């Protein structure tokens, strides 16, 4: 099992880099930086991380092909690879519909857009000759880097729905499954396996990452409290079939969504139940986390990504997880 950690660069750049250095020292294998136009820039953050680390793999987790054209994503990760040779990975997904709409972008044909973006990034990094004729993206033969990329850059596809999961299985070097609960991971794995078979590959050819919401603390109660805001947002954004899978009433999720939209935080967070926390996060003491991660590992997950909130105090939780959870799987 490999271990990744996700940061949302809402916080000051030096804090994100500080936490990443800490994670590297503790044996985390990957750092994923989210890409949202309203936070700090993902590649500026990654460049600084590359500068201050030596071993940890790093990449956007995830970017999208609507806001950033795939040739620019290819350029960014290829340039980053010069600073951190062989350590760069690239996570790409369809993006978030609501965020795209904020800037007047429509999420058209997401499967095709992601597929074509992956193909273009690979071609650019490999400096393949000839243009690319997709339905969403086109490049001419002149669209080539003026520099060589010495290492390959694995591409991970961020996925939640069945079709994107199948695409990730068929095409990705890895898949970032946006889920925390074993039932959701099990369902996702069915689709990833289908994709892998369709692509004529084996599951062992890809890195299957569970991109979770983690909250770890010495005391269960503190971990749960820290998970509440993130879980509220996940519940609000979950489709009905996923809510039903966890016996969460759609009306309850609608209530949270409305409260969040109206910035009634106390109402939104107060409506988060233990069942919601259980469904949408890996939450608890290190022992509880180990049990839950073991369950994911048995399903075929090969990378556990510790996503927000990580815990009540980020530094302490990175430390606790690194000292008490990671060694259980590495030794």
């Amino acid at each position, binding site marked *: 099992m490999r271990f990744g950690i996700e940061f949302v660069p809402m*916080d*000051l*750049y*030096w*804090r994100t*880099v*500080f936490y990443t*250095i*800490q994670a590297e*020292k503790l044996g985390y294998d990957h750092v994923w930086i989210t890409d949202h136009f309203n936070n700090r820039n993902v590649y500026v953050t990654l460049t*600084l991380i590359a500068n*201050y*680390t030596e071993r940890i793999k790093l990449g956007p987790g995830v970017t999208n092909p609507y806001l950033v054209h795939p040739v620019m994503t290819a350029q960014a990760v290829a340039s980053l690879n010069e600073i951190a040779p062989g350590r760069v990975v690239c996570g790409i997904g369809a993006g978030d519909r609501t965020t795209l709409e904020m800037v007047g972008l429509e999420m058209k044909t997401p499967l095709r857009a992601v597929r074509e973006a992956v193909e273009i990034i690979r071609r650019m990094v490999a400096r393949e000759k000839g243009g690319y004729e997709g339905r969403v993206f086109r490049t001419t033969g002149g669209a080539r880097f003026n520099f060589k990329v010495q290492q390959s850059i694995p591409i991970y596809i961020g996925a939640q729905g069945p079709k994107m999961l199948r695409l990730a299985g068929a095409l990705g070097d890895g898949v970032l499954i946006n889920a925390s609960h074993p039932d959701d991971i099990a369902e996702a794995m069915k689709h990833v396996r289908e994709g892998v078979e369709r692509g004529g590959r084996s599951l062992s050819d890809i890195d299957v990452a569970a991109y979770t919401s983690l909250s770890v603390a010495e005391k269960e109660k503190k971990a749960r409290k820290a998970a509440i805001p993130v879980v509220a947002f996940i519940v609000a954004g979950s489709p009905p079939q996923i809510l039903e899978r966890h016996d969460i009433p759609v009306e309850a999720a609608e209530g949270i969504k409305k409260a969040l939209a109206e910035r009634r935080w106390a109402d939104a967070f107060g409506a988060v139940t233990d069942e919601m926390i259980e469904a949408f996060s890996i939450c608890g003491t290190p022992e509880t986390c180990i049990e839950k991660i073991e369950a994911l590992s048995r399903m075929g997950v090969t990378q556990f990504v510790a996503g927000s909130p990580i815990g009540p*105090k*980020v*530094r302490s939780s990175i430390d606790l997880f690194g000292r008490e959870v990671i060694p259980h799987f590495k030794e």
Partner: protein
Amino acid sequence: MVSEEAIREIPAELRGELATRLVDLLLEAKEGVKLPSSKAKRLLQLWSLGELLESDEGLGLLLEGAAAVDPEGLKGILDEYGLERLKGEVLG
């Protein structure tokens, strides 16, 4: 700048604990943006080299950083440890 003499007066048994508390203060301060970029970069460099918490320079940098982002919080910590001279030097 915190003088080397003032740093060296911190009892050895307190240094590790003090450094960790200063790191937490920096990481959780609401006014973290007040940490000058030059200091932030040096802090990251020392942290990546494993010298932030142990070295005199690292401790001095943490003290200066804490004074910039949360002087009240720093005062509370230094009062707790009875580091009066250091408080005078860092916080004026």
